[in-house]
């Protein structure tokens, strides 16, 4: 059920400002692809463009094509809601719904889209929480508020919530940047398990994390303030971190960025 993503000359705009220019890359199914690069280089923007969350910001739009297997998600008549049901997302800060319990948070996607059957919801909740490696920690407080969990647990609730709707692709926007190292490790273990079923794209500031969890890595950069971000190089993670083709990539991954 995991799908391949082909990005073809994608440019992203905020109003008239071009934030990302001419990105072409492909994301393999059932693998983890990491986007790295300095702040403001457009990697999160590209990620958000992959499930049409970019356009939620007023004035934001894109040009180019994003193919999910064969279908262009920016094609005419494509419903962004349908795209987002296929391509799930986990955000930088854990954002469980504060009015809902742990259980309700996990099944929110199903319930808000019309699923009412209690037994199915309970089943999906357990499967998703087990999938997110959280079941044993929260099974006794499923009906307590989601906001009462620790930051790392909240983030895993958000991951469980995202996989509960069984997306084809999972996008993760710096999912560990607000978490401590222990919680980060739990999330990384989780990503390692999820890669068997999902196509995962992760944006991270942490290069060690990219090298630990991903098979392929794309390096983004900007040439200066006000310039659009560009994809500099995309290759296997091993190659990017050991022997990159581009000098700029090497400078960045070895810490000689300047």
């Amino acid at each position, binding site marked *: 059920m995991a799908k391949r993503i082909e990005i073809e000359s994608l440019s992203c705009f905020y109003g008239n400002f071009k934030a990302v220019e001419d990105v072409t890359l492909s994301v393999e199914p059932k693998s983890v692809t990491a986007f790295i690069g300095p702040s403001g280089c457009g990697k999160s923007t590209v990620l958000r463009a992959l*499930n049409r*969350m970019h356009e*939620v910001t*007023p004035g934001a739009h894109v040009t180019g094509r994003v193919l999910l297997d064969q279908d262009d998600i920016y094609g005419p008549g494509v419903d962004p*809601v*349908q795209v*987002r*049901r*296929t391509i*799930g*997302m986990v*955000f930088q*800060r854990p*954002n*469980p*719904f*504060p*009015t*809902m*319990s742990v259980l309700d948070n996990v099944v*929110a*996607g199903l319930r*808000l*889209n019309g699923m009412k059957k209690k037994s199915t919801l309970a089943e999906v909740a357990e499967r998703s929480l087990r999938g997110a490696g959280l079941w044993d920690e929260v099974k006794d407080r499923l009906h*307590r*508020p989601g*906001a*009462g969990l620790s930051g790392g647990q909240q983030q895993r609730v*958000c991951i469980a*919530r*995202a996989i509960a*709707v069984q997306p084809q692709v999972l996008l993760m926007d710096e999912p560990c940047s607000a978490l401590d190292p222990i919680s980060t490790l739990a999330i990384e273990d989780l990503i390692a398990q999820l890669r068997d079923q999902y196509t995962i794209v992760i944006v991270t500031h942490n290069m060690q994390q990219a090298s630990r969890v991903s098979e392929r890595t794309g390096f983004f950069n900007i040439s200066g303030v006000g310039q659009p971000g560009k994809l500099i190089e995309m290759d296997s993670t091993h190659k990017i971190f050991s022997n990159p083709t581009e000098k700029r990539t090497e400078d960045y991954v070895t810490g000689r960025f300047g």
Partner: protein
Amino acid sequence: MSTATALPPPSTLVGRKLPRWTPAALVAGALAIAGVLAVLGPADSIEGFVLWTGSLFLIGQTVASFAVEGGRHARDRLVTSLIYTSFVITVIPLVSVLILTIKNGMARFDSSFFSSSLRNIAATNAGGGAYHALVGTIEQVLIATAFAVPVGIFVAIYLVEFGTGRFARTVSTFVDVMTGLPSIVAGLFILSFWILALGQGYSGFAGALALAILMLPIVVRSTEEMLRLVPDALREASYALGVPRWKTIVRIVIPTALPGIVTGVMLGVARVAGETAPVLLVTFGTNSINTDPFSGPQSSLPLFVYQQAGLPNQVAIDRAWTGALTLILFVMLLNLAARLVTYFWRARMGR
């Protein structure tokens, strides 16, 4: 090894402090001086005595603190005292209104007040009650709420979730203008539009329409504030699950903001429940019980108070006080109910 245990050097971080008993001593001193002044003349009244005591305390404390502790601590103590003083000054009128109303209102706070109307009760007669007015107020406020709350919440949703550009700014400006609308103007509008132009009769419903106009901007503004406080992260989390926008608003945004919205609605209710002018113009008022808000004149509590307080007669004035007390209790009960709803809502969410 040295056997002499030298005292640790005094910390450079510890400054000189006034002893703890200083404020009490200063209050005692200020009281004593004000007492002397009261005997001598200048502070020869309760107000004067309080003012002199307060001022002397403020000056004494600031001077003492400045001399011992330095300028920053002196300013800190001065401003702290001023803030407490402001708090007390703010609370005095509220408490005194409550005490006065309860004291004067208890005279007629009996069962017949809540079970009978003023039918066949002349201005000089004792007895009678405000049942007709209470019924009128409840019906008019409920109808006004039924109009103003849905419309107000929808307008707020439009402004926060959808409104961009000139139309939204225009709507927002009009809401601001409505906030400042004098209540008598709302009454005059309903009088000229509903009663004179459309030829409808005086009724509680007409009063409710005028009250709804007054309530609307309060509901819009408070709901708008609350919706804006809902983090965008929650909206995005919902969108990312493939939830359509309208469902995100109905199931995520509004429940998150609900306690604040309820508070805003209660503010609106409290505001209109005490309105006299618009009701006076369009419900006409009556001394009889009229439970039908759609036909015939109806009374309301503010109207009852206004009319009874104008009569040159102690029994009528007593009725007015009890009417005022009833109005305060009505608003307080509604407020309490809303707080309870909010409390249990939050408890259910475990916050």
